């Protein structure tokens, strides 16, 4: 009797140990991934509060002897030429990203709705054409777009970027939104139409409010995509006062190759808007991506 009980309890312990083994492996792995993810960002922050001299020490100062916000002050000071440039770039990025986002939503919402609800001839073809756009690298479009922009007289304007980013972001935006519309029962619109709404009213009054999370998610994606875009901005813009942040920073620091605290501070400042946006709205952000990709 006692032996059986003993065996049973030993089996229990072994079982628990095996389960715990997996759990511990998972925890250790997560710690490793956390370090991999966070340490570079932490090092960026630490460097950004060093003086230029402190940053170029060997061995490095793990924590600066004299922490200073000088780099940030320089970047944000409108009196200073560096600050003027940086604020200018920042404003340009904000402008381009915001306009792109608004236009994306305006164009993507009806398109996604149509792809989700209607079945007109060529619907599947068009939808896959839109999706396939995502497969092609910027470079393929770069040369002809470069020429197209010259023809349209949009070289060195923000219009060239907005137009390009719009097409860049549209496929994903349409895809994400379609996922949302697919999940809204068609009976709701039918009910609305029977209740006296036209098709358009049903869309505006019933479907639109329900797809707000999707629209928010789409907007964040467009914004972040436009904010971080580099290659078109790098190619289309050459005048200093037009540059967006990624290009502007690169221009600036290819001239000042040793100002690492400044570079780190600028990288940090450039990341702040998108990271804040992401942290506030991450619920929608993650959901949208997965609704599109996983559920249908």
């Amino acid at each position, binding site marked *: 009797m006692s032996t059986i009980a003993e065996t049973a309890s030993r089996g229990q312990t072994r079982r628990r140990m095996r389960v715990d083994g997996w759990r511990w492996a998972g925890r250790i792995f997560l710690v490793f991934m956390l370090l991999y993810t966070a340490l570079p960002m932490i090092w960026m922050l630490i460097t950004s509060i060093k003086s230029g001299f402190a940053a170029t020490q060997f061995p490095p100062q793990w924590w600066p002897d004299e922490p200073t916000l000088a780099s940030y002050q320089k970047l944000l000071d409108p009196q200073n030429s560096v600050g003027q440039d940086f604020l200018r770039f920042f404003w340009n990025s904000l402008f381009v990203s915001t306009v792109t986002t608004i236009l994306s939503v305006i164009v993507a919402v009806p398109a996604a709705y149509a792809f989700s609800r209607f079945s007109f*001839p060529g619907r599947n073809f068009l939808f896959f054409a839109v999706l396939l756009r995502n497969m*092609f690298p910027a470079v393929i479009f770069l040369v002809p777009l470069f020429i197209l922009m010259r023809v349209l007289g949009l070289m060195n304007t923000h219009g060239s970027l907005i*137009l390009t980013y719009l097409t860049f972001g549209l496929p994903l935006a349409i895809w994400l939104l379609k996922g949302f519309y697919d999940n809204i029962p068609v009976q709701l619109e039918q009910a609305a139409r029977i209740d006296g709404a036209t098709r358009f009213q049903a869309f505006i009054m019933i479907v639109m409010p329900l797809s707000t999370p999707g629209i928010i998610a789409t907007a964040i994606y467009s914004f972040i995509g436009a904010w971080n875009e580099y290659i078109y901005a790098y190619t289309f813009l050459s005048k200093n006062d037009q540059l967006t942040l990624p290009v502007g920073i690169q221009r600036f620091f290819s001239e000042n190759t040793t100002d*690492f605290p400044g570079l780190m501070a600028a990288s940090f400042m450039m990341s702040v808007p998108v990271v804040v946006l992401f942290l506030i709205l991450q619920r929608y952000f993650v959901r949208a991506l997965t609704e599109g990709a996983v559920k249908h």
Partner: protein
Amino acid sequence: MAPPVRSDEQGHATVTIVTGKAEARRRLQPGRSGTLRKIWEHRADYAYVLPAIAVMLMVIAYPIYYTIELSFFKTPPGLQLRDKTFIGFDNYTAILTSQVFWKVTWNTLIWTLGSTFISFVLGFATALALHRDFIGRGVLRAILIIPWVISAVAASYIWKWIYHSDFGIIGAVLVGLGLADRPPNFIDNVSTVLPSLIVVNIWREFPFAMIMMMAGLQTVPDQLLRAAKVDGASAWQRFWHVTFPHLRNVSVVTMLLLAVANFNSFIIPWIMTGGGPSNASHIWITHIYELAFGRQRWGVASAYSVLLFLILMTLGYFYVRALSGNERNEGSA
């Protein structure tokens, strides 16, 4: 069941006008007039997609056409395109016989496969580790996603500083631990530059795989896992026989999306090394960019683009197949 009893009474031939959802039953359409008629009947539906299509046509269809055209011409520097001359497939033969091409292709292969595979494995593993609820899970997840959100330009500079040959922190740590005599030169070294850049790329990309796989994990039916547990399957067996097969489609889509993104990446190698040293970190995209905008060889760059295009079409085919495979499974479930 019983045949429709009234068929003999109503046996007269009805001329059917094709309307409505053709996708429900795709049959041969009765001639062109049927299709035109359908298009006409759905004219209102097109209004919804028209803005999107118009923008796409202008900024996508035209460039694709133009790239293909240009790939058959020799273009003088400076983009006076009136002066281009037709040279047939010369650009293509020039590419395929050049040494740089094979070097760059090899780099692209390593870069794409390495980044994709490792990002996916790390992302999947993280998703699994995060699947069980614990205190601080939400915060941890948010932190892990941040690298994916921030600009690749910022990421490139951060890592460039970390890899710095004189003041880089990794070098300092290695020296401090006595593992190296002096800080190693990561990105100015032909043999270490590509792996070093891949580490940066994975840093930015594994969160994407993580999000996708987390969402996939949520769709694994609890009942199946419980049934497997009752049947005596161990944690590993449950993963291998239930979870993993269930996630096959999501995995394929995720890997394809990663592969395409990696194949198309530009910023990290461009900013961190510019393709150097001696082409060791040049991949297709950076090489094309340099050909076009650095050396103004538009014809060759276009030919490169067309080749790239063909490769991506192949990948795209599998992508669409994986997507519709997803749909099929949903339908049968």
